[in-house]
């Protein structure tokens, strides 16, 4: 029971990571820097909780905010770089942060941060304060894990909702325009610098939040959690799930996380499958499993259902 709750919780965190890459990609920028922002968020949250005793509802957003603040100058500096160059520069950022985390004393070096206050444990202690017994016939630990899952699911839902709403607005149109044709977008009056840095910082914020969640879900984080492999993993979620609809990365995270739980014993087999999937998706279905066309069809159906008389006219 607790195991399934945990898997579902990690799917939610992965979904947030997928969305963080999706956001940046929605302005046509391929970033491998979000693993670095995740590291920033994770260590920030962990250290604030350990050293300063901040409550967890503050440490997680603080990690996200720090990541976003760092992302603004980084994004602006990388702005002139396109495609390949941007991917490599942001990978350089990630790798540099990993080396730094590996060497600083405060981050615990290669051993990482230990004894990070755990969200589930905290909740359990909190519930015991006023509940004699967990509801629904669950044990207190299971109930706490369920609440953890609900919190992470709510955060994923919130991030998803924000991205969908933003996507339907003037800002979202600017993102799509830049992604499609940056020159034409700027000729249409869009400040491409502003929107690219905006997307970069928003993605960093989500990655930072996910890092903070990760820190408080696992007791322990180390530099090895946030390197190239992590950067690629997030990218796989998007590539498999769908690169141009927000539901894509969430689906990708859910599918691949579930798959990796089945292959838990064989990490290398899991990565072989990840790799093969990336290759295959690019070759056969470059937009990913979910495409905007599917959602346009769904939208039309929904409109017809809501207004049966008007449906024919459209």
């Amino acid at each position, binding site marked *: 029971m607790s195991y399934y709750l945990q898997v579902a919780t990690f799917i939610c965190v992965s979904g947030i990571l997928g969305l963080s890459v999706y956001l940046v990609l929605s302005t046509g920028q391929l970033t491998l820097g979000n693993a670095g922002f995740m590291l920033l968020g994770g260590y920030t949250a962990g250290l604030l909780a350990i050293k300063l005793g901040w409550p967890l509802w503050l440490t997680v957003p603080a990690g996200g905010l720090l990541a976003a603040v760092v992302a603004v100058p980084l994004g602006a500096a990388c702005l002139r770089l396109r495609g390949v160059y941007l991917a490599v520069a942001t990978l350089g950022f990630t790798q540099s942060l990993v080396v730094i985390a590996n060497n600083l004393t405060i981050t615990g070096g290669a051993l990482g941060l230990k004894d990070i206050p755990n969200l589930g444990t905290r909740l359990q202690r909190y519930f015991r304060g006023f509940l004699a017994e967990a509801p629904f016939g669950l044990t207190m630990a299971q109930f706490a894990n369920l609440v953890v899952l609900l919190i992470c699911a709510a955060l994923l839902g919130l991030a998803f909702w*924000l991205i969908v*709403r*933003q996507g*339907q*607005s*003037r*800002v*979202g*149109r*600017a993102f*799509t*325009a830049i992604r*499609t*044709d940056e*020159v*034409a*977008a*700027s*000729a*249409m*009056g*869009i*400040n*491409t*610098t502003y929107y690219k840095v*905006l997307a970069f910082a928003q993605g960093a914020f989500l990655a930072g939040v996910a890092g903070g969640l990760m820190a408080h879900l696992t007791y322990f984080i180390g530099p090895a959690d946030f390197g190239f492999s992590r950067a690629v993993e997030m990218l796989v979620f998007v590539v498999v799930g769908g690169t*141009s609809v927000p539901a894509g990365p969430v689906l990708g995270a859910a599918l691949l996380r579930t798959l990796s739980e089945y292959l838990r014993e064989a990490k290398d087999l899991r990565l072989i499958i990840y790799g093969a999937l990336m290759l295959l998706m690019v070759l056969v279905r470059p937009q990913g499993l979910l495409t*905007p066309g599917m959602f346009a069809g769904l939208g039309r159906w929904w409109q017809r259902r809501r207004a049966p008389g008007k449906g024919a006219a*459209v």
Partner: protein
Amino acid sequence: MSAPDRAQGGSHVHSLLRVQGLTRRFGGLTAVADVELAVEAGQIFGLIGPNGAGKTTCFNLITGLLPPSAGAVEFGGRSIVGLAPHRVTALGMARTFQNIRLFGAMTARENVLVGAHARLRAGVFGGIFRTPAVRREEAAARERAVRLLDLVGLGDAADLPAAGLPYGRQRRLEIARALATEPRLLCLDEPAAGMNESESRELMDLIRRIREQGMTVLLIEHDMHVVMNLCDRVAVLNFGQKIAEGSPAEIQANPAVIEAYLGRDDSAAD
């Protein structure tokens, strides 16, 4: 906005667009050399010349997509050299592209809404939470988008993806998108390219209607028929240099222009 300006047409001090000494070099090649242009408010101004004469480069320099190597560009009395393209657009200059550059996956309506970007205000917060002000703004913008699509004859295609439209309709959608930026000066890069005769006649009507709404039009065109019927004034580029300027009749009689086009049937080219 530009209707009063129009009354002053002819006065050089108030030219809507004034280009002086405009030069652009690529490595050793000079694509545009020392070009002078003065477009008066309310004009339809044609920029013609053989293939590779530097017309599109000229457009890119004027609209800020390329920085000039030398020269001045003044728009509405203000220097716009070095301004980012989106700032130039915000000042009231809009353009279309020779090799149509629509946002293919977006619908026609969305393309026009992108054009309206600089005239709308909704930010991240307003866009996400749809404040009353943003709702009003968006509704007005959508209504205006439909009007613009109607103007160019695409009223029936509002919800179709731009990439799926036939070529001639894509060209007209680009014009609608440019109009959505609410320009004073509309720059059209070969709007009639690839159109048949009836389509290009409709296009000429459209451009005249646009001018009647108070806009100034600067157009690059290959189709001599369109240029001669439409333009008030024409400048001719050859090898990056301006070799002639005048009324369509003057241009047709100009020996230098005939020389530049010698042996070519440019009304059929492209």
